[in-house]
């Protein structure tokens, strides 16, 4: 479904992503892990069109999307939960969610909302509140809800557990698990490597801008050298 081929992303001339490649099959769950500044977020941004790739190709459902603009990519069914939340602060929780299904999905607004509230009941309590005044974790729920309400073909999440209470992390991953079982294709960036390895079938470990290892979670667990070098064992 998604094939990232030798992409390069530059910031003011300096390459942050240097020839990263990986494939993601429909219905698969892939985790992208690696240390700070490895280029995980940049890779996701390249896929969703927020960052320009200076070379390489990104194939989605058979065509190269690396030249498209972000909104076009979004409309193809790629949802990106970005790092650092990016909620629409002055709008209500419900308006935030509704914007998520603006151009995608078959659910009616009320069905979509119902689905999200079902999974994240806390949001229903706060549906009328300005999203900007929510707590950090509550905001994280809003952006995840906003992504899944459009029933994307590919769901990309950039550190969805960040700032979430353990219980909510459980909830979120339970939800992601449900989506995974329902055949949702997921590309996950996660600092919590254990969580990621538990959740994903395959992992891609990034070093500084480059792929260090691609393999199943089990394979990765056996590579103590990679874990020591890039992930740590706190």
């Amino acid at each position: 479904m998604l094939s990232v081929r030798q992409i390069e992303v530059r910031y003011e001339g300096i390459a942050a992503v240097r020839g990263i490649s990986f494939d993601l099959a429909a219905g698969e769950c892939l985790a992208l892990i690696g240390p700070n500044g490895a280029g995980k977020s940049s890779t996701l941004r390249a896929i969703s069109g927020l960052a320009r790739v200076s070379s390489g190709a990104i194939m989605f459902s058979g065509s190269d999307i690396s030249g498209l603009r972000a909104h076009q990519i979004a409309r193809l069914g790629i949802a990106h939960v970005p790092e650092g939340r990016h909620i629409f602060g002055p709008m209500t929780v419900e308006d935030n969610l509704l914007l998520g299904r603006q151009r995608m999905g078959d659910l009616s607004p009320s069905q979509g909302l119902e689905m999200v509230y079902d999974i994240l009941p806390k949001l229903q309590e706060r549906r009328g509140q300005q999203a900007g005044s929510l707590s950090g974790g509550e905001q994280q729920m809003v952006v995840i809800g906003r992504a899944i309400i459009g029933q994307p073909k590919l769901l990309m999440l950039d550190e969805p557990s960040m700032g979430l209470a353990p219980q909510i992390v459980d909830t979120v991953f339970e939800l992601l698990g449900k989506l995974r079982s329902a055949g949702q294709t997921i590309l996950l960036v996660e600092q919590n490597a254990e969580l990621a390895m538990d959740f994903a079938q395959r992992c891609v470990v990034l070093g500084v801008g480059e792929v260090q290892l691609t393999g199943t979670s089990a394979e990765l667990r056996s590579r103590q050298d990679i874990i020591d070098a890039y992930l740590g064992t706190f």
Partner: protein
Amino acid sequence: MDAAQLLQFAISGLTVGAIYALVGLGFNLIFNATDVINFAQGEFVMLGGILASIAIGQWHWPMWLAILTTIAAVGLVGALVDFGAVSRVRRGSVMTIVMITLGVSVMIKTAALLWVGPNPLYFDPFTAGPPLRIFGAVVQLQALWVIGTGAVVMAGLGLFFSRSALGREMLACAIDREAAYLMGIDVRRMVRISFVLSAALGALAGVLITPLTNATYDQGFTLALKGFAASALGGFGRSGSAIVGGLALGLIEAASVVVMPSGWKDSVALLVLILVLVVKPSGLLGGRAERRHTQAL
């Protein structure tokens, strides 16, 4: 000072206030999509007035045709401003774009000077006939047009932003451009639409007010400043704020003339504005402040 005169002041304040409000509404439209205050907004108003004066006064076109053509033409200018300047900005803060709109305003103003010269243009009020008299006070018919249209436009914009999907998408663009893109919103198109709409709205304002105020090439900036003040007083980004702010400003100006030499009129209004903002830093109705950084449009 008798009652009729006080009423007269109130009416004149409301008329002027409605003009400010119309300009302020144009500000809000672009602000709501981009966080930018477009200082060329006054120039759109000026162009509207000048084009309509030429079409009606010199070419003797039918009123409706002249008005529609004017609005369309100025809307096109709005699109050009977006295409030629605003959409080219790749980096920088919102302030960068604000400065660019200042440049645009100088350009349009100069072009108008070169084109029609410095003399005022004008055409007759929409409705001919003697002014209305209410309890001894005089109401110009054109003022009713200004106030009436202002109310309709405000109601329309209010519904647009609160109810329509397009309005919500526009707001989303202003709040967080990247996130808006991720929602599948074509931000650049939204920005362009907002420029076209607000230019058209500015043109409409220009057409409405020219029978009262005349149209001159250099009137834009003063109008922009008043519209800006109106939006600030009400609070940026709220549909009702430009109206409340504009009318308040107009009424304060009129009231100040009752008690002070009229040279202080603008200053009194501004002083009230400053005091209001010091007490309520986001305007009477509580508006938004802009983001600090902008990503590429």
